[in-house]
């Protein structure tokens, strides 16, 4: 869909980004690009740094080194709010829901429609929330209920709906299907496909289910121990290749029994 060296069409470029937490190096010299209308899959082991990368792109963390380019211009996000104002929206792996708030308030948190310039438009939030959740095939007792009372999948649906329906330029989805039922999962993938078809929005999806990644993504990146080690269009790879890439390491480990120390 995009040629590897056409920066002009890239809505997002991450260049040489590193990030340490205390003594843990979560990311080292990572480069990523996302073209307009593209869906990029990001895969990798647990603790590889995927979520950290995403949180840097959405302005939650600040990178230690490196820079981020939006439509070719370097940006430095002061906050999540700032990044969102520039069109970047995120589904977090930990969902970032407020247990104390109702479903609809969570869905519109920090993006609440108001009337008279200041009063919350609860009516609008309620009906939109209900519609979006219906679209996703997720049934919840009521949009007035506090999210603390919902099931795992219902909670995830709220987080996904919050971002997917936000009409932003760039969507970052961190394991959006992790707690989703088979049926609801299919429906969300449909939704992503719809968005892609409209070509307005560029999406980056983190997922551990490679079949799903291959199904909706245009391109796959593999993050290993904080570095990107693989970058191919999905058309030119396969489930087998991805599985082999990742599981190979595991096989060797298993074959040689348990490694003596911690692997690097």
């Amino acid at each position, binding site marked *: 869909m995009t040629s590897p060296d056409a920066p002009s069409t890239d809505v997002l470029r991450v260049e040489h980004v590193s990030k340490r937490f205390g003594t843990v190096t979560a990311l080292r010299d990572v480069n990523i690009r996302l073209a307009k209308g593209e869906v990029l899959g990001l895969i990798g082991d647990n603790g590889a740094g995927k979520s950290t990368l995403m949180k840097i792109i959405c302005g939650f963390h600040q990178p230690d080194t490196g820079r981020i380019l939006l439509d070719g211009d370097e940006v430095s996000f002061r906050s999540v709010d700032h990044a969102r104002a520039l069109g970047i929206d995120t589904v977090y792996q930990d969902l970032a829901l407020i247990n104390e*708030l109702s479903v609809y308030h969570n869905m519109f948190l*920090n993006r609440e429609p108001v009337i008279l310039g*200041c009063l919350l438009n609860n009516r609008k939030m309620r009906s939109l929330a209900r519609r979006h959740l219906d679209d996703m095939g997720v049934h919840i007792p009521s949009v007035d209920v506090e999210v603390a009372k919902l099931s795992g999948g219902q909670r995830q649906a709220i987080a996904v709906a919050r971002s997917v329906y936000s009409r932003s330029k760039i969507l970052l989805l961190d394991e959006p299907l992790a707690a989703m039922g088979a049926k609801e999962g299919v429906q969300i993938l449909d939704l992503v496909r719809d968005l892609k078809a409209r070509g307005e929005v560029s999406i980056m999806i983190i997922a551990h289910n490679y079949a799903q990644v291959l199904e909706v993504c245009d391109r796959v990146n593999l993050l290993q121990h904080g570095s990107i080690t693989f970058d191919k269009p999905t058309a030119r790879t396969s489930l087998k290749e991805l599985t082999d890439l990742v599981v190979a390491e595991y096989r060797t480990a298993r074959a040689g029994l348990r490694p003596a120390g911690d692997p690097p």
Partner: protein
Amino acid sequence: MPDIGDDVRDSPAPADVTGRPAPNGARRGATWILLRVRDEFLRRREASVLVVALALGAYFASASEAFLTPDNMVNITQAAAPSAIVACGIVLLLVSGEIDLSVGVVAALAPFMMHYAIDYWGLPGIPAILLALLTGTVIGLGNGLVTVLLKVPSFITTLGTFYLVTGIVLTTSGAYPAEIPASVDNQIGQWLGAAMWAHLGWALVIVAFFHVLFTRTRWGLHTIAVGGNLLGAQEAGVRAGRIKIGNFMIAGTLGAFAGIIEAFRVHTIDPNLGGGTGLMFTAVSAAVIGGTALAGGSGTIIGGALGALVLAELQDGFNLIGISANPYFLILGGSILLAMIANVYLSRLRRAGKTT
């Protein structure tokens, strides 16, 4: 005061995912309206405190004829109003996960600021009063900045401010009360606390305003979000620092305001107004009685005001009956425990009885 938005929920409400029969015909009409009112009442978290407040009122009314006289109503509203007003700020702070111990001494400082501004610096009445309020705002801002930017826990920040402001009040006043300046000891003073019903009026206006702010604006929603799940709120882009600092400023301003109306009421400017941590303590108690969680994330403004009312009723009622100094505390403690056990029991009933 029902949520304005409550009437827009669909009927039949999709309450039961597993297919509970829809409301039947009999529920329409008058019964339906009654049930709606009952539901609406039960839906409100403040309902149980209100019942406790009413029950206490009924008890004291039966125990003393004087309880329901207008004079005594004035007395109760005057006792409840300052803590209700301060509780508005405290509820916002507690919900956003912070506390302000200094609010009571800010109440003592504000009328002195007014006094200094008028009597020493020659300001006219109204600007002096605004300056006094602003002092509260600025102290709140200081508390907020130290807490949010320097990351000192607010308990400690405001403990420091508490002593600091106490010191300022004592050194500047010589620990001696001052008189209300003549230039405000007039109509202004009447409006600001000296008149019989001034306290009630201010309390109603302020509580109503903050109730709307808390339940119907983004500020309130974000306050809950920040206190309920700070990280989550930040991930969602909520400016947690701003919210907290803002709430400190609100609390400081309301503390100053409470101090001013109290000074006008007792007609003296006393360095011990607010009783050190006393007013803060009463306001926090009112907030918690009203259903605000000390740990943050949930609360109600009206509940806080009702909590202040409950405390004022207890104080007034037992004094009306005439309990002596020493057993007074015993009885007060016992009634607080009983009333709050009843309150918790009522809330549980309420939750069980809710039909939606």
